[in-house]
């Protein structure tokens, strides 16, 4: 029997792999994502999370890229990304100077007896139930990555069928541009 690998399969965080969040403002054109991914792939960087959406001005898109790796290589990556013709700017944002949020959808196998406890946890994390059947429920929770992590931790007393996380979006604090 083949084992099923889900996003819930726990992964050990490798030691001294700092997490970095980059915000990249780009032309909204075909191929831009590929150009940026190549800069990371060529240097062996794995992208942990990636969010892309059209900007308020439809000529541009905004990407939030989460990566882990050594900061020495990161300086080069940021410069190489910035050098791409289709990139308007590329900034790294530290957690102190920015806010990050992500959205979690989590599907639980949940009998009517278990339901009230699941709802209690949902309420604690400020989440919502968005789908309910006699045997399952889908809960949505948003917040910082650690909050989302701990929500998943709490829900793991139930059978988690699957989870989907959007990945981080970031915005610089104050009047500074992201």
């Amino acid at each position, binding site marked *: 029997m083949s084992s099923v690998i889900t996003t819930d399969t726990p992964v050990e965080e490798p030691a001294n792999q700092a997490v970095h969040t980059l915000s990249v403002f780009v032309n909204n054109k075909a*191929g831009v994502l590929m150009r940026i991914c190549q800069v990371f792939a060529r240097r062996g960087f794995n992208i942990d999370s990636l969010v892309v959406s059209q900007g308020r001005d439809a000529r541009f898109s905004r990407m939030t890229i989460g990566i882990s790796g050594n900061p020495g290589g990161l300086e080069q990556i940021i*410069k190489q990304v910035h*050098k791409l013709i289709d990139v308007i700017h590329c900034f790294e944002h530290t957690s102190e100077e920015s806010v990050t949020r992500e959205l979690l959808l989590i599907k639980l196998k949940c009998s009517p007896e278990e339901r009230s406890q699941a709802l209690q946890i949902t309420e604690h994390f400020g989440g919502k139930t968005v789908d309910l059947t006699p045997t399952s429920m889908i809960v949505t929770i948003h917040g910082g990555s650690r909050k989302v992590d701990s929500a998943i931790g709490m829900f793991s007393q139930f059978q988690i069928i699957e989870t989907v996380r959007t990945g981080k979006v970031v915005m610089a604090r104050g009047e500074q541009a992201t």
Partner: protein
Amino acid sequence: MSTTPLDGAQALIKTLDDLGIEYIFGYSGGAAIPIFDALETVETKMRFVLVRHEQGAVHMADGYARATGKPAAVLVTSGPGAGNTVTGLMTAQMDSVPMIVLCGQQVTWMLGKDAFQEADIFGITMPVVKHNYLVKETNDLPKIAREAYHIATTGRPGPVLIDIPKDISSAEFHGDMNPPLDLPGYHPDEAFSIDPAAIEEAVRMISHARQPVILAGQGAMIARAGEELLELAETLRCPVTTTLLGKGVFPETHELSLGMLGMHGTAYANKAMVEADLILNVGSRFDDRIIGKPHMFGRNANIIHIDIDPAEMNKMIRPHVQLIGDAKSALTELNVRAGRLETEAWIEKLNSYKKKHPLTFRKQGGLRMQQVIQEFYLQTKGKAIVSTDVGQHQMWAAQFFLNDRPHEWLSSGGAGTMGFGFPAAIGAQFACPDKTVIAFCGDGGFQMTLFELATAAIHKLPLKIVVLNNHYLGMVRQWQELFFDNRESGVDLIGNPDFGKLAAAYGIPSVGIKRPADVSRMVAKALDYNDGPILIHAECVKTDNVFPMIPAGAALEDMITEPPKTKMAKPTGST
């Protein structure tokens, strides 16, 4: 009276002409037929050169650009035609050479459907170009061509590829022939204003130097900063070494010249780098073949790095001062404030190294490539454009053909592309019909692109095609001899053709050189013949080695200047 509207291909060709493109090197095919047709229907000043393989076309455009600083265009068809440009694009990208490559493509509604001669060349070439386009609107063609030209030629130059589906080039054009460029993420003009605080810091650092060296590279060449460089070196009394690609940006016969540095550079240039208290890098990217062991490089020196590309800063070497911008602008700023340094003792020391470790070669025991190269240098008095292939002959050409002027040394540095030398020389000869152009090729590299003999013959280009034949892939054989117990593997070019007969098959005359005593006479004969190309076939010593040599990854002080007596450890560094 109604006029027939242009089609996309015609608008494109008109735009290229308007941009001042002189040459299009190319090879036709189904998806490119509308563009080839426009070459016939649109009256332009451009000349089209039909090559024999698309790789040849890209290297010709490359040679043209290195010799002039201006881009040429390449025009090929989709699929295999476009695919054959990849090595040439990589070569140009690595050495920051501008060019515009136009590819025909399947019709838009067939893209992604494995149609005949369809290849995702937009995706394939992304990592080997400065920028590329897949055109989706006929009316965008002039804008994209203008953007491509702008991107290719400004900032740090490079190749730009435009992929043009056949329906897009065939459709009627109703757009603007001269629309504004739309490049909100690209600001090359910033390179001309350099941070004044950084300039001040550099000036201060320079003023304290007693053992300074200027290291000049391709960036100085591209910026046409030769005059400013000469002025600075002479004002400071500062010795100058150049990279392989920087050859000629500072006159190599100048008393302050140390020649080329690096893996096979001069002993005195490398020793100067080790002992220097200041390294002023003008437009070199601190390539792994010049710095050896990165953490050992310049550890006694203050390092100032001038580069137009911010991404080169701290990439290999962490400089003490970063001057981000155009090399000519930076040197002009430095010249305003520079004064003479007390460097006479330093220059004297370096002169003693020059005497102790001159570049030399054995005159006995058969014909040496160095002798042939040196003879061409002496007889032309260095007044020639020299193109090389890659390998031992390339290093010997760099050592023995001195360049006093910029844009006369064409060599694939970063990519190390075998097969580059001969077609690049063709491109340079088209660009400079009145100059002597010499292609120094090994027997290996020449056979990779020798099909362009037809192109050289048809156009009666008075090229000197010098095949330095040692029947080996000599540089790899040298490594195998020195580091792999002389186990030869995959380097013996048994079965080489008779190069003279080969030339004759294309109607090209040749001279053969077998003995050292014949070199002078045969080179004179070759230089005398200018009715078309001539091939010089030099049958050379099979197992000569290039020295000095810094084993890959070793520190500059670990340079060897003669064959080692004991077995050497395998190189731990790059390649």
